[in-house]
Each structure stands twice: as structure tokens, then as C-alpha cells.
């Protein structure tokens, strides 16, 4: 269709296989590489927070109200340096952020994985079995997706109440539809390809066809959606916690820290709210950047 095609021949180089090619494509964006490095650091911090954190802010014995609201970089009487200051109760901000990252990342990732499992199953089943089942399922998916996630989360929390488990349930219920839709879309593309027909001719069981044949080819888009959705889930959880509706104070996520620090902003003690916010921002942005690059790599329309 394009009039320029008669001047652009195929590149003669043969692309390297699988993983190597993937890494080569991914590394084309220095920004994405940087984001990946940053995210890996954050992941490390989240996993090993109890061991690498300077203090344990939730050990009531070690927290002294006399240290409250110290600006960043100050020292207390015992010689501890609070690099990012302390909050209203005297807890070290740096440590709180480490633990907060742990909770935020944990809840976000966990809900994402569960949502992916549920959504992918439903989406794949819908695509594979087709017919009325598919229509009904996709209708539900469409309707749910037309409601903003925050609203859904609010409704669920309003009905069921607060708590870690209920927050995770809310996050899962909000996200599954994205995964279902993506899974179904890629499954549909795959289903119409010939190798599925061939497998069906061999009378393989439905379950085997879906699991061994269709699913591996749908992985790429699912991974892209997974990364972007996880960032979204973390953001959503932070918002809910900030509003006081998400996680309880015993499992403080970054959102809760920000929320707690909000009131101190007006008196100029900005660090109590801002630093957790920066940590949250870095987390979300790095995941989004990685996800963006993944999406560009896997998008056939942008292939050279």
C-alpha cells in the first residue's frame, strides 16, 4: 500500500535468537536500562529491609518521642544520624521508607500476580471456548473496565471494610479484568493460527492445548500488562492508604506514611511526607519505564 516499499529491502543481518535478542532490543533504550537498575535496587531494599535498615521503626522500644520531627541530617543524643529526618513519633524516616517499600511492593506484586492468574485463566478460557460463554465474560470485563479502578476499590472497601486482606481482594478485583482482556485478545490471535488446529487434530485435551500451546505465546503481552498494572496497583494502594481506607497502621505502606505526614506540611516539616512520596514516585516511574520499553519491543507495528 505504501508507495515507499520499493526502496526498502530487508536487512540482511540474521537476528540473534530468543533471550539474547530480547536483551539487545531492551538495551536500546538507555533510559529503560537505567530504570531497570533503579527498580532492581528498590526490589533489593524491599526484600532485605529488616536487615539493611538502620533502625526498626516499629520496635516501640527503640523509638523515642524526644526525637520527633528532626529535620534531615540531624543527629540525636545517642549519636544516630537521621539522614531523612524523623516523623512525628520519632521514627527514622529512612527506615520507615525501607519498610514501607517492602509493604507497598509486596501488596502490589502479590495482588498483581493473583489478578494475573485469575484474569489470564478467565481470558484464555473465554477465547478458547468461544460462543456464549465468551460473550458473557467479555461483557462483564468491558463493563468493569469502564469504571475507574479507584471507584471500584472504594466501593469494595466501603462494603467490606478495611484491612490487609480486604485491600488485596479489592486490588485483585480491580485488576483481573485487564489481564482477562489481554489474555483473551492474544489467545484469539493464537487460536486462529494453524498450529492450534493441528494440535486439535491430534486430539490433545483442551487443557493441554491451552496450557502448552496457546499460553506460551500469550506471555509477552501479559508481561507488558503485568508490569504496567503492577505500577498501577502500587499507586492505587498508596492512594487508598493515604485516604485512610487501605492498609492498617500496623502494616504501613508508603501511602500511609505520606498520609500521616500530610498534616506536618503546613508547619514546614515537609520531609515526613515528601520523602516517602519520592520513594513511591521512583518505584512507579521505574516500573512504568521498564514496562514502556517492553511494550515497544513486543509491539509488532513498531518493528523495523
Amino acid at each position, binding site marked *: *500500500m505504501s*508507495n*515507499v*516499499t*520499493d*526502496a*526498502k*529491502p*530487508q*536487512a*540482511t*543481518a540474521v537476528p540473534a535468537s530468543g533471550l539474547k535478542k530480547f536483551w539487545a532490543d531492551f538495551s536500546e533504550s538507555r533510559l529503560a536500562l537505567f530504570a531497570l537498575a533503579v527498580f532492581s535496587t528498590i526490589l533489593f531494599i524491599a526484600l532485605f529491609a529488616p536487615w539493611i535498615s538502620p533502625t526498626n521503626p516499629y520496635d516501640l522500644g527503640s523509638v523515642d518521642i524526644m526525637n520527633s520531627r528532626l529535620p534531615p541530617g540531624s543527629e540525636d543524643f545517642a549519636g544516630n544520624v537521621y539522614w531523612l529526618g524523623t516523623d512525628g513519633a520519632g521514627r527514622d524516616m529512612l527506615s520507615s521508607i525501607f519498610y514501607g517499600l517492602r509493604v507497598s511492593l509486596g501488596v502490589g506484586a502479590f495482588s498483581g500476580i493473583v489478578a494475573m492468574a485469575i484474569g489470564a485463566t478467565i481470558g484464555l478460557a473465554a477465547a478458547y471456548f468461544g460462543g456464549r460463554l465468551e460473550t458473557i465474560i467479555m461483557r462483564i470485563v468491558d463493563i468493569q473496565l469502564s469504571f475507574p479502578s479507584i471507584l471500584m476499590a472504594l466501593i469494595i472497601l466501603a462494603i467490606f471494610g478495611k484491612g490487609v486482606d480486604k485491600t488485596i481482594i479489592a486490588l485483585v478485583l480491580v485488576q483481573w479484568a485487564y489481564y482477562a482482556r489481554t489474555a483473551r485478545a492474544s489467545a484469539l490471535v493464537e487460536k486462529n493460527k494453524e498450529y492450534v488446529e493441528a494440535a486439535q487434530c491430534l486430539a490433545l485435551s483442551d487443557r493441554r492445548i491451552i496450557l502448552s500451546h496457546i499460553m506460551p505465546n500469550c506471555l509477552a503481552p501479559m508481561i507488558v500488562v503485568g508490569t504496567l498494572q503492577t505500577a498501577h496497583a502500587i499507586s492505587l494502594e498508596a492512594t487508598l492508604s493515604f485516604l485512610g481506607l487501605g492498609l492498617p497502621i500496623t502494616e504501613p505502606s508508603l501511602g500511609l506514611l505520606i498520609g500521616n505526614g500530610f498534616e506536618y506540611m503546613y508547619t514546614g516539616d515537609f520531609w515526613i511526607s515528601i520523602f516517602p512520596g519520592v520513594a513511591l514516585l521512583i518505584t512507579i516511574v521505574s516500573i512504568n519505564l521498564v514496562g514502556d520499553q517492553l511494550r515497544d519491543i513486543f509491539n509488532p507495528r513498531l518493528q*523495523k
Partner: protein
Amino acid sequence: MKPILQIENLQTHFFTKAGVVKAVDGVSFDINAGEVVGLVGESGSGKSITGFSVMGLVDAPGKIVGGRIMFQGEDIAAMSPQQLQSLRGNRISMIFQDPMMTLNPVLRVETQMVEAIKAHDSMISKSEARARARDALGLVGISAPEERMRAYPHQFSGGMRQRVSIAIAMLNRPDLIIADEPTTALDVTIQGQVIHEMQRLCEATKTALLCITHDLAVVAGIADRICVMYAGRVVEQGPIASTISQPLHPYTRGLMGSVPSQNRRGQPLQQIDGMVPSLLNLPSGCAFQNRCAMVSDKCLSEIPEPIDVGEQRLVRCVNVGQEPAS
């Protein structure tokens, strides 16, 4: 009579990540007033890019890097964007390949025709412009033009859409129309109609036509002269009758021989062995060397220049006139 278009050693290269693609690499030919010139070649020969170069519509990463395109005394390759813009659709028009994609689907046909008129005559009134558009539609054989103008492109059939494109091309009475694969996207039964229409109009208005196509049948029916392109160069040009009946360049011979109607029933179809070389990696010397039955040492070392063999025929072959060793 001086030609209205003189392309002199045109070079249009594409600077891609994989390397420099020399899509057009030394193309020269003329078009006289009122003449129909056929520019033929297979995909990748550079014929469409030649057409776009004349219009100044080469997209990045392509650029005209050498040569001149003399149109009525001025060099198009050196024109500013404003000069180009006043030239296009006005003195030189273009018809594209796929009429489905060349008309904007969300704008009415009338809008797209009126804007072509107003782009070059800002003083004209809308009703006058509409009248001209309506007449143009009537000229290309579209019935009830007044109503059909208000329609959207998707409401026309393929052949009709191409007629609309032709009408648009003729709106401002250009001196030259460039038609890029005008019939390729159409049904075979419609192709004849559209070609006939174009021929009739060009004769009536004395408009020159550059017909770019890979379809030899189209060219044979409509052209006065023919230029054959291969891998970015014109390998043979001359009057239509003599070039088709007695092709001189090995590639042209192969082309003419491979047309199914030229072959006798029951005989295997003739074909040209080998493949077009990659435009990223052209060989030194003649680009046809790996497929030519008459290839000699000279062919490998130097790019053949066009040789004048009389009767207004030019051939880029050092072995012109010789028969292939059998």
C-alpha cells in the same frame, strides 16, 4: 520543442539505520509537452521514488542528494517548500496507487476537491470552486456529480474513487500528471476503463503524463515512450513500439519475454534467473551482472553509461547489439 520536464542524473538516497539505500541512482529522462511516458520496473526499482522526487514528496529518511529536475526552466530539487507547495496540484499533479487510502475517510469528497482549488487560488469563491469540482467529476464520467460530491470516500467503489483522484489531479489544469501505479489496486475489469479515461483526458487537454507501473500491458496501451528502470537506474528508454518489439537491454528482453502472452502455449514460461540485488549493497559495475547472459569483464568494473543507438533510443549496456552466447 523543449521538454517540459528534464530529469538529469537524479539521485535520491535513503539514510537508514541499516545503511544507505540508493533508491534512485543516476536517473535521466525527458518528458515533452502532451507526451505520455511510461516508467516501468519491478518493485524496488526506484520508479515510485522517482515520481515522488519530482513532486518533492520524498519522506524521511530519504533525500534528493544529487542531480537536477528541470521543470519549465526551474530546478525542482533546489526549490523551497513554499515554491514546491505552489507547484504541486497546480502545475504538476499526482495520482496515487490505492484510492481507498488516498482520500481522507472523514472528509467529504467535495471538501477535498474544493481545498485543492483554493490552495492555489485563494480569491475564488466557494460556489465557483464547487462548480469547477462538479464539472471535473462530470468530465471523468461520474454521474450525478452534484449529489455524489457531498458523499464520503467510502461510499464510492474503487474505480469511482480513482476517477475522483483523476478529477482532482486535473482540477487546476496541470502541465504534467504523474500517475503512480494508477491501476494496480483496481479490479482487472475496471483497469481498462480507468486507463482509457486517463488517456482520453490527457489527449483532450494536452497534458503530459508520466505513468509509473510494473504492468507492461498498461504501458503498451497508453504510452508514447517508455523508460525501463532496474535497481535505481534507467537501463533502457525509447519509443514504445520499437522498444517493446525489439528490446535491446538484456533486462528489457527478459521483461518482454516473460509476459505470458508472448509465450507460446505449452512452452515453459520464460523468466529471468536470479534476484534483484539489495539496494543497500549494490555491486560495482552493472547492477544486472548476476542475472545477465551476456555478462563480460567490463560489466563488472564500470557502471555502463547510456549509449545512444539512434532513433531516440538509449541503452545502458556495453554489450548492446550483441546476441547472448547460447
